[in-house]
């Protein structure tokens, strides 16, 4: 026994080296097999139910594809896209028209130029985003020729409503989440409790959300009407007044999803080195300066991430409006996904619906890329 045990380590070493050498050769082959065995169940489902549908959507968008009649599957090239973007009789261009949207594009252009001038933006990024804004401004001047109309006016109005929702909801939801994250990022029982409260609505399903808020906003039954009547205001029919419906949807969404962004911000804040704050305080920085010089730079990555995720989520708005307003009143809250849904399942035009889906996909990709470029400039420079 004793002799065996003294010999063993040496043997062990040599045999180990040998097996290691042989293994590393064998590994390269057997490991690939093992890896693909581990990956296969997910990959198969992923390829069939996620990647394939994207390719299929691209293909279907080139077809006239009837949901009810399988005989109508005709290749039509880009006809669906032409219908989406086209008019019944030519296009003209003018400096007027779409005034609000075009002023907004100009305002963003101005902001980009000022930021570039002050050195806050990389030059390439500034040129690209300025170019995009000018392009948007020019495109917004297009309109149907005399005695003509857009072939699909509903597409344009639902696209405009979607963009409006994105532009209203993103700054509001991100801003409120950021404002609440700063006091709630500190440790302690009260902050932990409040975090639980603010996140709670996020776990509700959209149907519960609309059930609560549909009645909350009801001018006869809701809490909000009784709240506004304290201030002597007439009850507002939030969901049936064209001017108010979108605002009501935005507020509903704020209540529902703000907690998600809040958690991301808190995680980001807790990653900032506490010593940075201490150093800033020692240098005599007041809370506002600490916020500007420590919090904002330290949170930049999180801010980019939260904003991009929020824009992506906002572009996909559907359930709230579909249940609460059905796109009304007067189509003022109809959004792109609802238009996709209705084109496909009310008008049974799957090919056209697929083309609309592809459009939404592309718009979201472009928006995400632009934001990463615009907000992430600091990392480009470093």
């Amino acid at each position, binding site marked *: 026994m004793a002799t065996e045990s003294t010999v063993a380590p040496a043997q062990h070493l040599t045999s180990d080296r040998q097996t290691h050498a042989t293994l590393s050769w064998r*590994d*390269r082959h057997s*490991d*690939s097999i*093992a*890896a*693909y065995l*581990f*990956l296969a169940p*997910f*990959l198969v489902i*992923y390829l*069939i*139910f*996620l*990647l394939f*549908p*994207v390719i*299929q*959507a691209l293909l*279907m968008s080139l077809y006239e594809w009837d949901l009810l009649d399988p005989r109508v599957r005709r290749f039509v090239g880009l006809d669906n896209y032409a219908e989406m973007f086209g008019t019944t009789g030519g296009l003209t261009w003018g400096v007027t028209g779409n005034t609000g949207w075009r002023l907004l594009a100009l305002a963003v252009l101005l902001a980009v130029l000022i930021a570039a001038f002050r050195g806050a933006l990389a030059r390439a990024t500034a040129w690209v985003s300025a170019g995009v804004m000018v392009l948007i401004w020019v495109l917004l001047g297009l309109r149907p020729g005399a005695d003509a109309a857009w072939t699909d006016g509903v597409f344009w109005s639902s696209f405009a409503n979607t963009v409006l929702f994105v532009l209203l909801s993103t700054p509001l939801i991100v801003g409120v989440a950021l404002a609440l994250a700063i*006091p709630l990022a*500190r440790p302690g029982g009260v902050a932990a409790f*409040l975090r*639980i*409260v603010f*996140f*709670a*609505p996020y*776990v*509700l*399903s*959209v*149907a*519960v959300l*609309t059930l*609560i808020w*549909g*009645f*909350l906003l009801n001018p*006869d*039954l*809701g*809490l909000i009407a009784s709240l506004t009547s304290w201030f002597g205001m007439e009850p507002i029919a939030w969901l049936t007044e064209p001017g108010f419906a979108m605002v009501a949807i935005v507020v509903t969404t704020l*209540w529902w999803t703000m907690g998600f962004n809040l958690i*991301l911000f808190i995680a980001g804040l807790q990653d900032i080195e506490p010593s940075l704050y*201490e150093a800033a*305080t020692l240098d005599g920085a007041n809370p506002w300066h600490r916020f500007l010089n420590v919090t904002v730079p330290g949170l930049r990555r999180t801010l980019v991430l939260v904003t991009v*995720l929020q824009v992506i989520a906002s*572009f996909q708005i*559907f359930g709230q409006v579909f*249940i609460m307003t059905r796109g009304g009143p007067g189509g003022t809250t109809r959004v792109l996904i609802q238009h*996709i*849904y209705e084109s*496909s399942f009310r008008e049974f035009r*799957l090919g056209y619906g*697929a083309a609309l*889906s592809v459009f*939404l*996909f592309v718009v979201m990709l472009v928006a995400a890329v632009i934001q990463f470029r615009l907000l992430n400039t600091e990392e480009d420079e470093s």
Partner: protein
Amino acid sequence: MSSASQATDKDAKLRDGGPGRKPVKVRGLLVVGLLGFVAAMWLAPLVWMFSLSLSDNTALQTNTTSLLPLEATTENYQDALAVGLTPRWLLNSTIVTGVTTIATLLLSAMAGYALARIRFSGKRLVFPLILAGLMVPKEAMFIPLFLMFAEVDQHNTYQALALPRIAAPLGVFIMTQFFMAIPRELEEAAAMDGASRWRIFTRIMLPMSVPALTALGTFTFILTWNDFLWPLVSATDPEMFTITTGLASLQGNFAQANELGSLMARGAIAAIPLLILYFIFQRYLIRGIAMGSGGK
């Protein structure tokens, strides 16, 4: 030295809003008061739903703005669970969500383990391919999916409701990141002892990833339970609605003002499982969200 430590001391007091100088204390109170007010506003809609759901339907004819139940009763809940399809929808949601969650956990962990720990040819192709899926807006791609299931006549089934959700790549991404952060020593020791890959995975890696799996599982459960567009498109037979689409269908055509309490009870029934789950697992859930997005 002493002046520096004094400064940090005072600093700590400033941050705590503790017994420091007076204006700070006042401002601290103001912040707490404001936060409390906003938090109360955030809670009020939920409290209101539960209050209405516990109120008598006829009492609600005259007053619907109370945050406390009127003539408190559990009748609405009993009705909701006895009459109509609500119990069936709850069952559907439980099955679909349960299957989806378990499958997502298992498949994500397996794929994540392979991507994080095994060297294999083609990895440079596979990993970006999976990451690309993160960019696909699931909500926008329901038409080809609808057609796919229609062609094999599989709509209004549990598999149609579950499979597209399992294909989501976020879980793989999270698990890959998690496994990459685990030290290799344990695994190597087991490999020396001749343990197979599968054994290492089930006996060492899976037990170590329980916190990550809990987070991912909670998140998946909530998202699947709340899925709306795909069940709306795929399950058109009321027997196959989930609680989410079922509840939405009630809102369209309910004799609303008369049955407000019953309706709210159904909403509460849809919300309660998730709220309970959330309160149990909120720590994991919150960490999971940070994990899923922090690592990019």
